[in-house]
């Protein structure tokens, strides 16, 4: 890693400058993470008085646990649903905005502000709209012959949290798709138009392939978002229910460890989540390198 050609001399100063960041990182990130690693190998007795070394038993117990396996598949459905819904809506909007010249900025302003809404608030907003007794949407659905109830139906609850999580993320995806679209050379699109390709054909044969780096990057970012940043959506609305239908991994770590006080199992779950974030971060950084090479 480079520095400037010319640097300041200094024996203690650079360490002093780094100290605040490094101390916070060591105390609040690396130490707790290593504690989680360590505790994942221990099992506490029911009263929390003593603990014994159990090796990988916590992990093997997890993978025999039907609730944990359920949580894995729930997380997969939730992450894929949120990512697909949010990215396709954002791509449609970005490609449409990109056609317009004068109104582009106005639409952009109207579409980006949900980025500022906390996931928990997004959850509460949609929870209210879909409220089975007073919400607008169940009222309309009822006229169409569908009885919406996210308190009893797992499918309804899952749809609700996917919609809430995707809604908040559209703004982010929209901005990155719009930036990607604007960096596609106009001459390519003009050449295709002269050859007689209409807007739809141009989109699928030229624009979409050239957007691939942006799409890959957003795929990873959205999966990370859906897996880790949506704790608020779940906690403020369904709380993992009904019957575990929306119990995603981050919510389960919290519920088992912080509420249920099952330290060993929760630590093992933390370690698995860490492995997932590390894998996703590595993928993300590799794709970002490619993102600039059109």
């Amino acid at each position, binding site marked *: 890693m480079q520095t400037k050609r010319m640097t300041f001399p200094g024996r203690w*100063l650079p360490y002093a400058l780094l100290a605040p960041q490094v101390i916070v990182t060591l105390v609040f990130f690396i130490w707790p993470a290593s504690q989680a690693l360590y505790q994942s190998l221990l099992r506490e007795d029911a009263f929390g008085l003593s603990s014994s070394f159990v090796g990988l038993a916590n992990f093997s117990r997890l993978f025999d646990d039907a609730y944990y396996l359920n949580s894995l598949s729930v997380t997969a459905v939730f992450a894929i649903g949120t990512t697909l819904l949010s990215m396709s809506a954002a791509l*449609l909007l970005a490609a449409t905005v990109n056609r317009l010249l004068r109104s582009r900025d106005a639409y952009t302003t109207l579409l980006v502000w949900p980025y500022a809404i906390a996931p928990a608030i997004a959850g509460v907003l949609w929870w209210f709209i879909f409220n089975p007794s007073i919400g607008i949407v169940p009222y309309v659905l009822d006229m169409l012959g569908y009885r919406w109830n996210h308190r009893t139906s797992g499918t309804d609850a899952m749809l609700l949290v996917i919609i809430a999580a995707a809604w908040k993320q559209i703004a982010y995806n929209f901005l990155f798709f719009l930036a990607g679209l604007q960096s596609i050379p106009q001459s390519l699109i003009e050449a295709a138009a002269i050859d007689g390709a209409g807007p739809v054909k141009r989109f699928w044969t030229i624009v979409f392939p050239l957007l691939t780096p942006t799409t890959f990057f957003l795929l990873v970012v959205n999966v990370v978002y859906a897996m880790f940043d949506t704790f608020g959506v779940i906690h403020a609305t369904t709380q993992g229910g009904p019957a575990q239908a929306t119990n995603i991994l981050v919510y389960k770590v919290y519920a088992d460890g912080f509420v249920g006080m099952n330290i060993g199992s929760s630590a093992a779950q933390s370690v698995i989540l*860490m492995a997932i974030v590390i894998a996703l971060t590595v993928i993300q950084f590799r794709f970002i390198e490619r993102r600039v090479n059109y």
Partner: protein
Amino acid sequence: MVEHRPWGNLFAHSILILGVALVLFPVYIAIVASTQGPGEFLRGTLPLVPGSHALDNYRAMWETGLSRAGAPPAGQMLWNSLVMALAITFGKLSISLLSAFAIVYFRFPFRLFFFWIIFITLMLPVEVRIIPTFRVVADLGMLNSFAGLSIPLIASATATFLFRQFFMTVPEELLEAARVDGAGPLKFFKDILLPLSVTNIAALFVIMFIYGWNQYLWPLLITTDPDYYTIVMGLQRMTTAADGDPQWHLVMAAVVMAALPPVLVILFMQRLFVKGLTETEK
């Protein structure tokens, strides 16, 4: 645009208007609900036009909150959120500026090692280490305090990387000139590097402020004293109570108040926001 297609444009506008309407819909409903009287929700469905109780609801929420749900007045929770968000923002910005300065402008043993330690923070979000982090904060006696709400969240790899990248583009000649004139490292940092970084700092400020304001899991873990509840996490207590005992008009007033500050920041600083968002992801 490549060719002139009047119908195409009409189609584009209709897609966008529909999209904007869907995006705005939940917030519109929240605003409408926050203006209703307490009886409206017992009658079945919610009206779609604003009612006349806006002032009463917002004042009630601001001054007294939902005491039955264990939620303090919104005015106080908003203040706590503001303090936490600003502390996180200033903390992140200052420690990242300092560490990027050290990494770019000095050569010293273990430089790469420190760089990796900072990088690792990206891979360890609070969500994956809830209990051990809670224990550390409890052992340090930082539960129910603003220090506990902000300090554990101020390490920032993204901000450090952004500043590092920016410092690398600052011309070498500035450093040479400063050293010829006898400026030491701290003077160079304060009088040359900081003024040059103002736009980057402002762009990151917008992103970090929204990040700080919207914290949810962390305040939930470490505050048990309602005096330290933040508005975003305090909302959850109100909704769980509202399900049994409908006070939706008050809850939605709190939702609107909780969402307004960061939304205003984005609307008024959109250019900086877009810059900050796209640069931090490089």
